[in-house]
């Protein structure tokens, strides 16, 4: 139960505190706005938290710990779940012993993402329960609830946050801490070795569990009914609940806390109890479609409100049936690469040499904007390599020889390494040039460590992936390491030479991020000092 202590926390901070207070033994993930701070804060609170190379690996690690009875948390942004989806779908079949909570932080409005996919679809597709908190208190409480549901039905549970829940600060009253259960491994290969012989009954078990959860959710405390006027009823979930209450303070509201499986009987009763029933949801019409498919008459927002975030003004418009064009506010100054950023030099050189740049995700994607406008494509983590290779394969030689793949260090480790393997395996006739922008940190998400920095999430020394060694070991003959700020002429000369030849080449443009350089020095010094005192 909630105590007297009162805190002002972001949703991410509240999640971290809940992970500590509800006895989570391990958290893993890959940084991604708006999810990043959860694991960082969990580590600050004394939790065991680690960055993995990517979300799929992170999910596999926590699946292993959850098989051993330990409460386990994996965090990622919405697109990270695409990477981890392969694990999710079959983990739903195998089930877990200790709680496995998957945090998917969606980004409606694409404040810092390449798409605004609605991950409520994943809960339906994979067949796992999904909880959707609306503020920091619920983020806190729902992690406890997600762990309980996960352990009771031995299933992974998705906790879906959105940008405004992750990054808004609201008041939280924490509960009494629960001590973690000691881990215990029980061999159960029929449940966990997913050969068809075992997977067929596993699928049936999954559907049976979902039917039980469905029945439980009809009366679960996760869904809230606010009694208001009979005239207007609103069915909503997540942050939209807050906008809806403010936009229509007199309305009756059914707030869905567990949005998969949906408490359809509760929804039917609610819809029948009001004169007009409107579904208020951000993103895709997931609730509205499901409710209508169940034969319940509800109003849904019009298509124009599928795009972008909701807010109080937009909810007022939806309730008023106002589909007129919305006012477009003036835009403020856009962000840009820092003055003196090492990425700038690289893109200035690429532009000077008239390259076709297959780009990737990170700060350097800003090079696509004026004044540089030096990037031709950016899709998803790691795509720079494969997309550049595809262009090289089909373009006439004179154009193919202008194609360069450019990827950041953290993104390369995340999913560029397999692209490099593809480059060795299926080399284009004109060869290829891969530039790894190594600024020694995951800069875009706020300076997180990764396997190429040689330091763990909490900045302690560990094993390090060395890109030039990796490239050479895979058989790349032309490997160059250079500092684009110290020696921009060498960068240009090397790039010219690589573009002129028909070889495969990897250029590591190494120079620490301006924002991180001082911190990197401090972390390295602390690690060197720690090593010195060891016996």
């Amino acid at each position, binding site marked *: 139960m909630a105590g007297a202590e009162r805190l002002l926390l972001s949703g991410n901070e509240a999640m971290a505190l809940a992970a500590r207070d509800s006895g989570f033994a391990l958290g893993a993930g890959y940084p991604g706005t*708006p999810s990043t701070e959860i694991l960082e804060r969990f580590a600050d609170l004394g939790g065991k938290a680690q960055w993995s190379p990517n979300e799929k690996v992170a999910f596999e690690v926590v699946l292993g710990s959850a098989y051993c009875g330990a409460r386990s948390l994996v965090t990622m942004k919405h697109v990270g779940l695409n990477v981890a989806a392969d694990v999710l779908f079959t983990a739903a079949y195998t089930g877990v012993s200790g709680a496995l909570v998957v945090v998917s932080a969606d980004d409606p409005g694409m404040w810092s993402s390449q798409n605004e996919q609605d991950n409520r679809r994943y809960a339906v597709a994979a067949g796992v329960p999904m909880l959707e908190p609306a503020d920091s208190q619920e983020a806190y409480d729902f992690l406890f609830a997600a762990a309980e549901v996960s352990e009771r039905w031995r299933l992974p549970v998705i906790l879906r946050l959105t940008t405004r829940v992750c990054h808004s600060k609201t008041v939280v009253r924490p509960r009494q801490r629960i001590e973690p259960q000691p881990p215990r491994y029980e061999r159960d290969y029929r449940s966990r070795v997913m050969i068809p012989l075992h997977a067929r009954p596993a699928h049936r078990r999954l559907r049976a569990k979902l039917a039980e959860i469905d029945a439980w959710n009809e009366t679960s405390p996760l869904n809230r009914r606010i009694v208001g006027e009979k005239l207007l009823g609103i069915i909503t979930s997540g942050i939209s609940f807050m*906008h809806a209450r*403010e936009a229509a303070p007199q309305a009756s509201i059914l707030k869905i806390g567990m949005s998969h499986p949906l408490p359809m009987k509760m929804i039917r009763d609610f819809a029948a109890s009001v004169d007009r029933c409107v579904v208020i949801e951000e993103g895709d019409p997931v609730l509205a479609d499901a409710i209508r498919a169940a034969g319940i008459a509800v109003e849904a927002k019009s298509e124009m409100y599928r795009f972008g975030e909701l807010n109080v003004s937009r909810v007022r418009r939806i309730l008023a049936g106002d589909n007129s064009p919305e006012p477009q506010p*003036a835009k403020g100054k856009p*962000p840009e690469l820092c003055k003196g950023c090492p990425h700038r030099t690289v893109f200035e050189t690429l532009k000077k040499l008239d390259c076709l740049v297959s780009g990737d995700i990170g700060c350097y994607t800003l090079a696509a904007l004026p004044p540089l406008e030096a990037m031709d494509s950016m899709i998803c983590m790691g795509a720079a390599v494969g997309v550049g290779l595809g262009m090289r394969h089909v373009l006439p030689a004179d154009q193919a020889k202008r194609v360069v793949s450019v990827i950041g260090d953290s993104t390369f480790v995340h999913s560029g390494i397999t692209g490099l393997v593809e480059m060795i395996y299926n080399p284009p006739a004109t060869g290829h040039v891969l530039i790894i922008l190594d600024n020694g940190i995951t800069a*875009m998400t706020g300076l997180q460590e990764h396997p190429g920095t040689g330091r763990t999430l909490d900045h302690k020394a560990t094993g390090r992936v060395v890109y030039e060694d990796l490239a050479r070991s895979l058989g790349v003959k032309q490997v160059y390491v250079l500092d684009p700020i110290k020696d921009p002429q060498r960068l240009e000369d090397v790039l010219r030479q690589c573009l002129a030849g028909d070889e495969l080449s990897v250029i590591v443009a190494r120079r620490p991020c301006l924002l991180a350089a001082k911190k990197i020095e401090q972390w390295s010094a602390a690690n060197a000092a720690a090593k010195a005192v060891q016996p």
Partner: protein
Amino acid sequence: MTAAVTNVVLAGLGGQGVIKASDILAQAAFDAGFDVKKSEIHGMSQRGGFVASDVRFGEQVLSPMIPAGEADILVLMAADQLEAARPCLKAGGELILGAEIDIKGMPPRCLNVAVLGALSSALEIPRKSWHAAIQALLPPKSHEENLRAFEAGRRV
């Protein structure tokens, strides 16, 4: 109950301390016993772009975002971003410009706290809550300088 909520938008450019200032405001209102919600977009703010943070406090706050045209006060640190920031302000709302605050020879890094001083004159948050928030959220060695900046702004 919504009528009792005070809405403040702090805006400027990445690097000006807008988010830190909004953290201090939210913490001060929280310390004074209000329900508080604060919302902004992270991520790109360190790259020098436009940044705005919404702080709402009162008896009960619902949405964390201030609806357009409903801010009681807009605190703007970068005068050239007025066009982007202005639509948040309600008719007759108050505009506080960072550029108009004399920080009395103190380092420019204190401007974000000085504007909070100016803002504090318009809000019903006790001075001790402001001081507590500054001390809770800024590094100890900068407390003296920032408390002076706050008081300098407060006299504006």
